[in-house]
């Protein structure tokens, strides 16, 4: 009796597992299909959407060669890389110092500042775009990559300050107090005690601020119209815009997409623990 019950139980378990594996394989296909399709298309000798396929006949690297030799892809890549690195450096510096002050000190204007940041965040990000355009025009900063850096850094402060502040609040205040009793200055407490302890959130800010310029489309489209300062998002978008016949090039787009996706995706995979933890901690704003 007991034995018989066990057999049917085991069979049932195998069926359930079989269904789960089947499901997992189907999801894997759904996940991989678009990715393999774009890789396949990038190797396709025929430049047309309708002929694109996962396994092209006569696969060739011609599209990659054309992308690098005939389009400005490398220039876009270099421009975007420059913007991303500068944005990352300055964002990390300003975000952490500002958040440190807001987390650790009581001073006049603190609550007002935090509230103002929250209000700023509720405005759609491009609300000020016309004004930014006019400011850039006035100061001769159109077609200037540094203008993009300045705007990204400025934008990162309201976005991240609550998050970083929340993380710093979670560090015990007794650490600072002990250091102050030993005669440390505020700057020393920040650099020697709090900064080393907040490495995970620093990594998170560095990663997110580094990633965002690669895919931002709105701002460069507004502030940049010269080829030598074009960024990747704009370049790739144009390659897929049928209305833009001068730049339309489907297979080169696929090759370009693969070339930018690989390094970014690798970064994500390596640092995904920090990203998930950072996003998760963002919700408990300092509670």
């Amino acid at each position, binding site marked *: 009796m007991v034995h018989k019950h066990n057999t049917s139980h085991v069979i049932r378990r195998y069926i359930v597992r079989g269904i789960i594996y089947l499901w997992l394989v189907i999801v894997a296909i759904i996940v991989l299909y*678009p990715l393999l399709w*774009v890789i396949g298309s990038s190797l396709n000798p025929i430049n047309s959407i309708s002929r694109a396929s996962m396994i092209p006949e006569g696969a060739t690297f011609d599209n990659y060669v054309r992308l690098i030799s005939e389009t400005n892809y490398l220039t876009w890549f270099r421009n975007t890389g420059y913007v991303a690195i500068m944005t990352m450096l300055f964002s990390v510096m300003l975000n952490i110092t500002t958040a440190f002050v807001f987390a650790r000190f009581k001073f006049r204007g603190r609550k007002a500042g935090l509230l103002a940041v929250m209000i700023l965040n509720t405005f759609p990000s491009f609300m000020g775009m016309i*004004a930014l355009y006019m400011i850039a025009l006035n100061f001769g900063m159109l077609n200037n990559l540094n203008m993009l850096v300045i705007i990204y850094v400025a934008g990162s402060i309201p976005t991240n300050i609550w998050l970083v502040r929340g993380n710093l609040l979670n560090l015990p205040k007794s650490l600072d107090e002990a250091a102050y009793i030993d005669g440390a200055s505020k700057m020393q407490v920040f650099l020697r005690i709090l900064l080393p302890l907040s490495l995970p959130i620093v990594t998170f800010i560095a990663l997110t601020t580094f990633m965002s310029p690669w895919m931002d*489309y709105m701002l460069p489209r507004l502030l940049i119209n010269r080829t030598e300062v074009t960024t990747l998002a704009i370049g790739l978008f144009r390659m897929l815009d049928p209305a833009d016949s001068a730049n339309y090039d489907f297979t080169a787009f696929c090759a370009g997409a693969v070339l930018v996706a690989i390094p970014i*995706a690798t970064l994500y995979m390596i640092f995904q623990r920090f990203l*998930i933890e950072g*996003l998760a901690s963002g919700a408990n*704003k*300092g509670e």
Partner: protein
Amino acid sequence: MKYVVTLCSAIIWGSGQAINKQWIKGAVFFIVQCIFWFVELSTGLLDVITGRAEPLFRNCGYFIRGLWGLITLGEIPRLDSSVLVFDHSVMLMIGGIISTFILLLFILVWIWNIRDAYKTHVLIDHGQKQSSLDYVKGLWEKSFEYIMITPGALLVLFISVIPVLFSISIAFTNYNRNTVPPRNLIDWTGFQTFQDIVQIPIWGTTFVSILIWTICWAFLATFSAYSFGLLNAVLINTKGILFKKFWRGLYVLPWAVPGLVSLLVFRAMFNRQGAFNTLLMNMGIIDEALPFLSNSTWARTILVLTNVWLGFPYFMSLISGVMTSISPELYEAVDVDGGGGWTKFRAISLPAILTATAPQIVMSITFNFNNFGHVYFLTQGGPPNPAFQMAGSTDILITWLFKLTLDQRMYNYAAAISIIIFIMIATVSGINLMRTRAFKED
């Protein structure tokens, strides 16, 4: 005496400090005042005083001209290229806002200078004296907070606050493609734009329809991606399933690939001649190409489905993390009570997961509410909807505003709509914020 000192500082900055024998500090305040007057005089006021320029506000220095420009928005349009002296309303408005802010900064220093003169003198009356050097030393530790936030605050002021104030101002003008400076002058029109939005039917209906779709989209996108992520996290975590790490690693891919790339790829794949139509036709399921992106119902469905593809890995990773932290003893308790896998999931896992991820769900809804990239890169808001004012069927509020601003140049309407949305969001989140512990504790 202390009032005399205060009055001196109010007229000639730093003179009160000089009387208090704090020479360096006094000199610094005096230099700031000199800079202020130098800017104002050298940019025009001097010419007006000496009679070299007509005594008009427009000929005055940086600060007076800024205020004049902000209030009048200019007086001379550039009707043709022969007009050499003309006013560009938009430039005047931005310049005015910036110069007003700088003026406010100067006023702040002025007040600081007056208060300082007064306070120091009171201290001297009580027999205490502080040298400028000690003051500077104390200042660093005392104003550490302000010094540290100054660079960030200035950046946010010029790149975020001033532009936002500018667009708020635009809502109260008639600045759009029909009045283009410098050919036309822009005027302050009060609440006219808001009245138009309420009274001209097409603006109102477009706004309400897009608002409803935006809310539906935000909830649908979040919950579909969440459920799919939950399902996969649970299945991978099932006892006896091999290669857990492999599956998780594979499923994270859509999250790792840059969104812009995958969305543009999807756009190509859902094209009329794209991969999906070819695939379905080859399999004999359909006879002619489906209008994936050119039919509004299809386009909306595709938006939600592709969002599942892009969004589920994040929730899956998050939920997997939560599940590993659930104590196994809880599951053993269910075993003792004779419950099966389903009971375990419903009674233990699900409540734990939902509580732990509730904040992320809320964040995801607000993110999708403003998910510009997803809609713009996939459909660009299309297909166009003739019943709407300059919008397509899949446009959410933010993409509509983007088009109104950059493509249609209906600046004042876009600004007014942003303000309306802002008021709606701010009311909801403001009430929420006031109730959170984090804010009360401050």
